[in-house]
């Protein structure tokens, strides 16, 4: 046993196996976790493989020892069965991979999109121009009325957003199964937590149809809420989203460095 644990070749094999087990089986077991997509598994394993190769070859002695079993496998008469096995298994694997490549199974094209497409600098909301750059939630300027706005935002959310974005604001409402991409998960730190409120306002007001083409291929089912909600209702529901999830919106960077006509947005 010790012979194996101290031998770089078997160490390398062992590390790869452990890494695979951890990524594929252990990570999904962690609380609140989920299966790791195949693309990410491949990426992790490739990184680990590179690391392992570096490990076995960064010292000359280890490199030689690492090569021993391989050379032995190729040369030693007593390992003839192993050698034959490798000579059979490797070509078969290659053949299978090649078959997988040429075989004409039709798969759904990958459905990808950029999560945060670039917002326009200005939008027209029900005929009124709203400049998004530097825009803050106007309701936050009335701290006394915040509870009322929040209550209104909650009502708006439950009457409109709930079927898709869900009771827990995690994008798993009872209609979520019918949409692709899945509705945004506001509990995730990658959505509203990363965005300014003006960005969220844009996404709510203009919905899927208002996404720029660079966000393609989108099929966002997000409605154009300006058809349903008033400006104040949208700002209220934004307040509610942040309040309910506990995130704070990204704020605009202070740009008042006086550097002559730039960094202050558009005119």
């Amino acid at each position, binding site marked *: 046993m010790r012979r194996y644990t101290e031998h770089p070749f078997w160490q390398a094999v062992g590390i790869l196996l452990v890494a695979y087990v951890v990524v594929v089986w252990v990570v999904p077991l962690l609380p609140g976790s989920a299966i790791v997509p195949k693309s990410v598994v491949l990426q992790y394993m490739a990184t680990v493989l590179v690391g392992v190769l570096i490990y076995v070859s960064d010292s000359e002695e280890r490199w030689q020892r690492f090569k021993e079993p391989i050379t032995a496998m190729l040369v030693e008469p007593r390992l003839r069965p192993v050698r034959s096995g490798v000579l059979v298994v490797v070509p078969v694997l290659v053949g299978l991979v090649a078959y997988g490549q040429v075989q004409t199974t039709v798969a759904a094209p*990958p459905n*990808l999109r*950029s999560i945060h497409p670039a917002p326009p600098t200005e939008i*027209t909301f*029900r*005929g*009124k121009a709203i400049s998004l750059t530097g825009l803050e939630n106007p309701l936050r300027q009335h701290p006394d009325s915040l509870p009322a706005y929040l209550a209104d935002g909650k009502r708006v959310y439950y009457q409109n957003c709930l079927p898709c974005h869900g009771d827990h604001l995690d994008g798993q409402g009872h209609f979520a199964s019918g949409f692709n991409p899945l509705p945004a998960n506001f509990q995730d730190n990658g959505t509203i937590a990363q965005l300014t409120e003006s960005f969220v306002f844009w996404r709510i007001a203009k919905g899927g149809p208002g996404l*720029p*083409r*660079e966000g*393609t291929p989108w099929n966002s089912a997000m409605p154009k809420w*300006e*058809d349903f909600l008033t400006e104040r209702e949208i700002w209220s529901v934004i307040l509610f989203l942040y309040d309910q999830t506990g995130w704070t919106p990204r704020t605009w960077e202070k740009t008042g460095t006086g550097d002559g006509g730039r960094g202050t947005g558009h005119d």
Partner: protein
Amino acid sequence: MWATNAKIVGIVLGTLALYTLIANKIPQVQSEVPQALSLGANVTPEQLVAAGEKVFNGIGGCTTCHGLGTRAPNLLTDETGTGPIGVRCAKREPGKSCKQYLYESLDQPTAYVVAGYQPIMPVMTKQLSPAQVWSVIAFLESQGGTVDVTASDIPSTATTSATSTTATGGAGAAGGAAFAGGSTDPKAIIQAAGCLACHKLEGQGQVIAPDLTHVGSRRDAESIRKKILDPASSIAKGYEKLAGIMPKAFGTMMNAAQLEAVVQFLAGHK
């Protein structure tokens, strides 16, 4: 030595290939470009058709009536067994080619009302630029017919457009910048501008857009003026879906006196 060289070349090519492969495995997204269309001398029919389809579905507002098959003939699909517009356009008026017929029906819509429909279509040559008009014609021709609009049509017909406007509307101001011969009779302007194609006023006209009969009670003069000059500035409740359909060009097609006359006339309709 050659083995070393080969190895180096292999390493370099392999690294490049790996990076290229990875970059090709990830999502391929190309940035969007607003499509500037050169309607110069070398414009292709495909470009015209593509531009025309945008106008037809967008700024031209054509689909408001021609899409539903109730207010106006359906142009893109079969209309009572005569096929889409590209097929039937050449047969509509004896002696007129498809292109001529389409242009004139855009220019003088009331002269070519299809049986069974109301004469509600506005004069499109006033609402769209010549290039847009011709691209719409090209698009309509492409619906089952062959596109024979070329770049040469566009400048030459700009003058045709002006003359035919003169012929219909009397002595038009230079550049066709005034309806009804510059008259300040609001009713005549409203009639000539084709407002009633969408709006209802005093029992006349259509109900696609808000009824103007009591518009004065909803909007003051200032608001009406603004709405005509910039139709997107405010959308009446319940008509949000139709936002953008009202042409933006009315402001430029009326002179100040005419605009004021229309505004006051409408504001008086309480």
